[in-house]
């Protein structure tokens, strides 16, 4: 899915876990996501997609949060 090198949130399959590495997003949006728990170093689980495949629900810091895949590809994981 991602054309960049490195794995992103969008590469995770349902029930797969990863550690968030960095947010390659405009500062405003990145800070908003960080306030919701998307902090570098946090553990993320891909939960399930919406029926149409996009957006996708991720579990982070005990909450289920839906992001569009276009956002998820900007969140690098390790």
């Amino acid at each position, binding site marked *: 899915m991602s054309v960049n090198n490195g794995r992103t949130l969008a590469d995770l399959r349902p029930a797969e876990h990863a550690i968030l590495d960095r947010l390659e997003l405009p500062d405003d949006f990145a800070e908003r996501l960080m*306030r919701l728990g998307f*902090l570098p170093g946090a553990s993320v689980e891909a939960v399930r997609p919406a029926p149409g495949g996009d957006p996708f629900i991720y579990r982070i810091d005990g909450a289920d949060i*839906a992001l569009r895949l276009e956002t998820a590809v900007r969140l690098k994981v390790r």
Partner: protein
Amino acid sequence: MSDCHTETPLAAAPPYAATGRRLVALIGPPNSGKSTLFNALTGLRQQVGNYPGVTVERHIGRAILDHNRTVDLLDLPGVYSLHPRSDDERVTHDVLAGQRSDLPRPDAVLLIVDSTNLERNLAMVAPILTLGLPAMIVLNMADELRHRGGAVDVGLLSRETGLPVALVSAVQGEGVDEVRHFLAERVAPPPRVELPVLSNATACRGWASSVAKGAGYASPLPPEWTPKLDAVLLDRIWGPAILLGLLALIWWTIFAAATPMMDAVDWAISTSGESIRAALPAGLLQSFAIDGVWSGVGSVVVFLPQILLLTLFMGLLEDSGYMARAALIADRTLSRVGLQGRAVIPLVSALACAVPAIMSTRTIENKRDRLATIFVAPFMVCSARLPVYTLLIAAFVPGAAWVKAATLFGLYLLGAAAAFVTAWILKSSMLKSDRSPFVLEMPTYRWPTWRSLGLRLLDRARVFLQRAGTVILTVAIVLWFLANIPMKNGEPPEIGDSWAGSIGKTIEPVIAPLGFNWKIGIGLITSLAAREVMVATLGTIYGIEGADEEGSAGNQSLRDALRRDLSPGGAAALIAFFAFAMQCMSTVAVVRRETGGWTWPVFQFAYMLALAYGASFVAFRIFS
């Protein structure tokens, strides 16, 4: 700083600050049960809607404490950044910083957090602590925390934060007295404990972790039912099918199940109308009381059961947590027309009423997305259209109940289609913007409480009856006079010779191409105030025409009268007109306020009127 977005309070309504009452603000992340606690503290004394002079629609309620002391509670939108981005955030920030002219700085703050996810919630409210207001931490959902095997030491948390802490289950009323106790005290000065500099999200989260650890917080097990339900409700095939099925079921129930209730209300109104008629001497007074006031207002009150049923369903969807799933399912579709999934909440709320729907667009951060959503929300079939649709469908659509229900459902689809096409046009022209980010939290599923549903119903009923008692009553009275002058030899004129008739006949040439005669024309003019006035107007007009008829307050006679007077093509055109026209002064007013000027409401009104005229013209041709 606050001047750029606050309006000067109206001179007639003194600013809140002048009341000199104590004010405590409630703040908490979404889904922390803030409204439930607000309701538990204020009960039925809450004042839903805007406080006079407060230009922000925030709930203010009065909590009665011991010894008849009271304190006013302000329900603020749940956002926590000190760098506000959305309008909602700006409001919260400015209120807490004491930068608003219409509200004093709150005397204290209740920080409501979801105890089942303490660390995350504490991190979200942390920036508020740096404002230095006296505060209490309310750990809500205590019952769920225990049930799922979590624990927290309230005393330790209090020591860690330097703030009073209460463990509460707002739903069950547990611990609410402790909150009352805090509200009753002259609240202690700001925290004595050194707070770290909470300048960024990472720092806030780190602080929250260490505080939770210090308070011996044990995370509960994950919710048991939410993933199981999501597996079905967000299934590739079942998900959209259940969403559409639910919507269809709701509309069918509104149409079919409401009928006996409506008949009962109708019977009560016409029976009481007849006994009033019998008690009054025949003549003008009797005509005014029955044909003007009683049948005018009564013909609208009949629709209360339908509106309450719709409100009940909307409340169930929201309180259970399903609405967020609906937004998720709809995001893909909405993104095709340039909107985002979050717009589903205003758009679905608009099925009840466009006014709160337009206010709920404040959560959409992108200005252009927000304008587009405001612009298209009035196309959704609001509850004020229901009386008109119901009347016309009952009068003109032949066949079984399901045919009529399907017709009504089709009208909901038509409204949604108009909203989507308009959004697409706007978003690919004047409101073009980059795709805005979509972030939506999926709350844990919860049982809706009777209390919360009951309060929603009461509120809606109150607003509806208030309108029936003010706007609709006024229009009914004015219309009765216009229909009864000029008098000839002390007798009221034929409706066609009255002033109302003249007005209708003046505009008849304009509306004749749509299949409307002058009587419908009178209704079109009066319903500019509010759509449901149409039914009252027709009631008055035909009530006067058939004054010798028995029980003219009843909707059965109104249906018969309409069938005599309107061709099927005209009826289709009338439905089309109501589907598209912006006949609601409240909506115009709220759009003006939310967009900060007359440009958008005027453009919106003109666009919708042009569309309504065109659609009626086409509908008349097709169905004739």
